[in-house]
């Protein structure tokens, strides 16, 4: 900054030595007051001494400026004024532009402008157009405070193992959402705010994970963990007076390590299997129960009628059943008892015979 000012002063000297020298005009009275150093306590006094120095030597620069002036004056530049003042006016315009640009700041919605005067914090500008002293005196640092930033920790591709409370390992990845609550604290309190957030997040997450079991961390306690980590982080960051507001933690993934993932899938499969066993048993129970009910009810109905006329009902049922049974079977009636004829079995059974039923029916008589 100092060298910049110095360089500017030298530039001014070189520029003005040509036109001012031969005409012997000295400095413009109003011009030094408007210069950028007129306002600063540091540079103001140097300015006139620099500008008054006019060299006597005529160079090609003079020629150039003179030609430039000749081109400009008929164009209605500044009639009536001494022609040497064009450069002065140009400088004044640049200075004026500089003043306007560096003292007016448009702060967008969601932004804040932290104003420092010679390095010391003075105030914070809200959204809108803010006016400050020009640049070397007051500087504005714009910060986006509403925008919620995301800091990701751990990733789906890499393993980031943490120890849980039951001394198991979990592969976890999560992101921290945060924004700036107090811009001046954010700017001036922490040397590396982003790095701090990462470290605090990791530390808090590990502290919380180390207090819960693996199943809790993978399962329904996730929301609880997120809240605890976020509170923990906020407390630590507040103790640093960091000006950071934690909006929330999102656990994107909490899985067992790859090395044991298969075993965890086995557990899920076992749960499915167990449920299958139970479902089958329930289906069986339902079926059996309905069948028993149905048969019992049928028996009860028949029994009711049977009680009214036991003998008749019994005979009727017997004949009806035998009718149906004997209708559909091959029947052989053997008259002479005691004489068992030779039965050619394949003939008796036209289709593929099965000896078992025949033997049974033979025995059943």
């Amino acid at each position, binding site marked *: 900054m100092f060298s910049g000012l*110095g360089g500017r002063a030298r530039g001014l000297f070189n520029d003005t030595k040509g036109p001012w020298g031969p005409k012997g005009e000295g400095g413009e009275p109003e011009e030094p007051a408007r210069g950028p150093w007129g306002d600063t306590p540091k540079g103001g006094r140097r300015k006139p001494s620099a500008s008054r120095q006019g060299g006597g030597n005529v160079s090609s620069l003079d020629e150039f400026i003179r030609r430039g002036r000749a081109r400009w004056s008929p164009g209605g530049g500044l009639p009536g004024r001494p022609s040497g003042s064009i450069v002065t006016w140009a400088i004044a315009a640049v200075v004026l532009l500089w003043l306007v640009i560096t003292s007016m700041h448009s702060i967008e919605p969601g932004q804040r402008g932290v104003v420092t005067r010679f390095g*010391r*914090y003075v105030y914070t500008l809200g959204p809108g157009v803010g006016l400050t002293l020009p640049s070397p005196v007051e500087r504005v640092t714009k910060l986006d405070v509403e925008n919620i930033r995301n800091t990701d920790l751990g990733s789906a591709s890499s393993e980031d193992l943490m120890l849980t409370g039951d001394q198991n390992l979990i592969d976890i990845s999560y992101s921290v959402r945060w924004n700036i609550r107090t811009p001046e604290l954010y700017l001036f309190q922490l040397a590396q705010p982003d790095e701090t957030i990462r470290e605090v997040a*990791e530390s808090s997450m590990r*502290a919380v994970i180390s207090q819960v079991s693996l199943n809790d961390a993978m399962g329904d306690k996730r929301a609880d963990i997120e809240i605890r980590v976020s509170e923990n982080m906020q407390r630590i960051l507040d103790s*640093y007076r960091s000006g950071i507001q934690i909006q929330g933690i999102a656990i994107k993934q909490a899985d067992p390590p790859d090395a044991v993932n298969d075993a965890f899938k086995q557990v899920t499969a076992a749960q499915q299997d*167990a449920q299958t066993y139970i479902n089958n048993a329930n289906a069986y129970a339902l079926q059996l129960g309905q069948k028993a009910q149905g*048969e019992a*009810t049928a028996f009860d109905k028949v029994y009711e009628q049977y009680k009214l006329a036991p003998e008749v009902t019994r005979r009727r049922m017997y004949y009806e059943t035998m009718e149906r049974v004997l209708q*559909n079977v091959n029947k052989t009636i053997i008259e002479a008892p005691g004489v068992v004829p030779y039965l050619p079995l394949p003939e008796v059974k036209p289709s593929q015979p099965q000896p078992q039923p025949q033997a049974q029916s033979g025995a059943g008589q």
Partner: protein
Amino acid sequence: MTDFIRRHPLASGIAAFILLVVFLTSFPIVPETKQAVVVRFGKPVRILNEYEAGRPIGGAGAGISWRIPFAEQVVWIDKRIQDVDMQQQQVLSTDQRRLEVDAFARYRIVNPLLMYVRARTEEQLAEQLRPILGSEVRNELGKVSFASLLTPERQGVMEDVRDSLNRIAGQYGVKIIDVRIKRTDLPDGTPLQSAFERMRTAREQEARSIRAEGAKQAQIIRAQADADAARTYAASFGKDPQFYDFYRAMQSYESTFLGDGSERPAPTTVILSPQNDYLREFTGKSR
């Protein structure tokens, strides 16, 4: 003087520039984030913007200051909270288990003069703090068991580390704000593999017990269903066992010879004797 300037514009320009630079550097601007020690010929004489606990931002301190050109040098020292990372190292707990521990400390230089005298630069300060942090963490964690490293108790351990670190760091004009364990990992190799193995067997055990539990419940459900059905049958059929016998026999004949509707039974040949009860009237002699 003016004549000299007219005659030697270049020389006087350079001179003016040098003067300007010297003038400007005599008024250093102290930002909020820095504090500074002004050193006159190697001897610290003043401190600019020294940290004071509780002073709000924008209070006295930062801003424009002054120094004697050439005689005094300004040494800038960061005023913000900085951090120093410990290299990851193995810690042996009381129960002889190894852990890879990674910790960080946050500190602020509260006495820039002391820091300047003892450590000269911030880099050297960090270099000196790092091994101290490492050894303090190792010492304190070596006093507790593996299990308690994973419990809330470790926060207390960290406070011990911070306090003992603070005693040493105070000599450098540094205040340790907190010390935290970032990671506690099982070392690669055997401890990690055996942890995996333990997790795997635990899961296998869980899977087996879940299956067994399911099978047990299924069996109970089936048995209960059988019992319920038996009770239902008994309640109904028990009213007349003889009729049940007949009734059930009729049903049985029917389903044996005619099938239950879903599939046809094998064709059957029945050989009847005329003495059969069904053919009683066949002979015409029963009356």
